[in-house]
């Protein structure tokens, strides 16, 4: 009896979903299918058996993605979803690859062989890796300086954003922003003309909100937000969505615990565009306001920020995360949620 195949067929796949710049539409399609099939998104490559890449290929992102692919323990399969309409087929094919036990065994053997060949027995450093350097942290303690790259392949993270950090303890000491695979002339998914009674603007706010809720550790509310977002992007009438949206908004808007977590984080001064001003709690309240105005009958909500807002957010980012611990830094990024597709090619100004 083939126990491996039997177990594999019963297992629910767990995809690690990565979005490249220009892949928001594809990501929405993938997330929708994942939700409808009752799959769950993986937290890390080690947890995953599918690597799903949403968006167009580009050389820089592919290099990072190959490293992620090497971290999937196996059995593993890979899918690229270039456009939303390919999502269903790509996921089906990847699932079939996953169930091909013979091919998975070959892949595992090949990896074991190359791992043995690469192993170098006489190394005096643990695992052949250099030790961490040390330096004084903000409190004057000498701690290891760990280099951690946040993105571009990270769950609930803006497409293509790469935040290279130096961390001591769990506090970010240095941060440098870059965009992987961004190019001029790319169109923002959310910036597309809105002919749909404010539905798209609300969906954009819901997408930002679900990302923040995921990072803030409220997966159930994030899941509901994704469901409502998908319903709003559906063409045609949406019976019942308005009432559900109001219920969801009431539930998350009432959460003092969430506001308490967000308050005081990533404070942006009055010189910045209006969408970014205040702290993370203020930005969260503004999203909820945008969702609120659109769930009630009335004029469509304000359009989401354009390229200038996203560019300002990226410029502000390093200063806002330095000195914060990792949890806060991730909440700051999620609360700004820069629309990286709107920016075009991005190079930080020298000195930042």
């Amino acid at each position, binding site marked *: 009896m083939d126990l491996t195949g039997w177990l594999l067929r019963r297992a629910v796949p767990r995809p690690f979903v990565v979005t490249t710049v220009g892949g928001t539409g594809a990501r929405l399609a993938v997330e929708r299918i994942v939700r409808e099939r009752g799959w769950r998104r993986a937290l890390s490559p*080690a947890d995953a058996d599918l690597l799903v890449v949403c968006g167009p290929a580009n050389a820089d992102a592919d290099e990072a993605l190959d490293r992620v692919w090497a971290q999937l323990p196996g059995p593993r399969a890979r899918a690229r979803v270039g456009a939303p309409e390919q999502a269903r087929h790509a996921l089906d094919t990847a699932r079939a690859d996953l169930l091909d036990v013979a091919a998975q065994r070959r892949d595992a053997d090949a990896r074991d062989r190359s791992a043995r060949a690469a192993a170098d027995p006489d190394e005096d450093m643990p695992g052949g890796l250099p030790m961490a350097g040390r330096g004084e942290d903000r409190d004057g303690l000498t701690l290891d300086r760990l280099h951690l790259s946040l993105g571009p392949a990270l769950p609930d993270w803006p497409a293509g954003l790469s935040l290279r950090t130096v961390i001591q303890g769990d506090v970010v000491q240095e941060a440098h922003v870059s965009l992987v695979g961004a190019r001029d002339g790319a169109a923002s998914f959310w910036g597309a003309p809105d002919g749909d009674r404010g539905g798209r603007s609300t969906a954009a706010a819901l997408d930002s909100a679900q990302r923040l809720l995921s*990072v803030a550790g409220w997966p159930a509310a994030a899941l509901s937000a994704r469901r409502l977002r998908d319903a709003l992007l559906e063409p045609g009438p949406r019976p019942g969505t308005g009432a559900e949206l109001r219920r969801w908004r009431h539930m998350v808007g009432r959460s003092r615990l969430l506001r308490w977590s967000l308050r005081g984080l990533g404070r942006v001064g009055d010189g910045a565009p209006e969408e970014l001003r205040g702290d993370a709690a203020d930005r969260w309240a503004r999203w909820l306001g945008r969702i609120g105005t659109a769930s009630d009958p009335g004029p469509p909500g304000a359009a989401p920020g354009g390229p200038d807002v996203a560019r300002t957010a990226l410029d502000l980012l390093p200063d806002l995360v330095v000195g914060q611990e990792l949890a806060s830094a991730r909440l700051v990024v999620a609360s700004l949620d820069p629309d990286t597709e709107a920016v075009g090619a991005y190079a930080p100004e020298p000195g930042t």
Partner: protein
Amino acid sequence: MSGVAPPWAVLLVPALLIVLGYGAAAGTAALRARAAGAAPVSGLTAPARESARLLVQRRRTIPGTDTLLWRLGGALVPVAAVLAALVIPLGSTAVSDPSVGVVWFNAMEVVVWAALWMLGWGANSVWGLVGGYRFLIQGLSYELPHMFALTAAALGAGSLRVGDVVAAQEQVWFAVLMPAAFVVYLVSALAMAFWGPFGTPVGRDLAGGVAAELSGVDLLVLRAGRYVFLAAVAAMAVPLFLGGGAGPLLPGWVWTLVKTAGVLALLVWLGHRLPAVRMDRFTEVGWVVLVPVTLLQVLAVAVYVLVR
């Protein structure tokens, strides 16, 4: 009132904990399915299917790991849960009812500190390390209020023996007599099982935290161990605060299981309804609010015991 069970009951403890833990996992999956817009019934098989996936998945080897600590850490979580549950009476009978049962439970629960730190440290990964730091801070924040909550129950009974604590609740449950201690116990139950709002050591923002590099059966043991541990801390609330096996009509062991399932369902529901608590902010609450509250609770119980 309390008795000691026959030796084979040692096997019953893990079996019951696994059943309760599976129930908690299935309940979580059902709530998730409802939020996703699917039928909640699909949640019932979700933990089994997830286990099937992890059984097939290969274990990872990564350079620079402290293999012993890394592999051992996850396995310690279910072991600690079973050891802690040995002193919990089912009805009126526990596997063991030592004179320091409450302290034994507390000690086993602290083993999880070591377990998560070993996991985080052993993986040679920044995510794991930061997850480990988070759990240590979490431990420092919840442990003192938690110990004072346990102290309040032990003081009310005048004994550290779990059987005596149950016997002392014949007139009135300690949940009624010392509500603050009960609430603090529930909060610390979530925190020690790194569950729900206190799940940041394995949080999504850390790509899984201490579990970020785990795969396959190692991950299965940790995730299942967490549910088993959650079941154990829920079960301990019953003898400490909810009168143990006391109840009308039904036999004691049924009441123990019913009450345990109730507490467990409450913890699962809280995990569903609440966002994560940021540990740097909770530390302040733990020390500035919860420690004084539990100390006042202990004082009130002490006065009650004296004038009773």
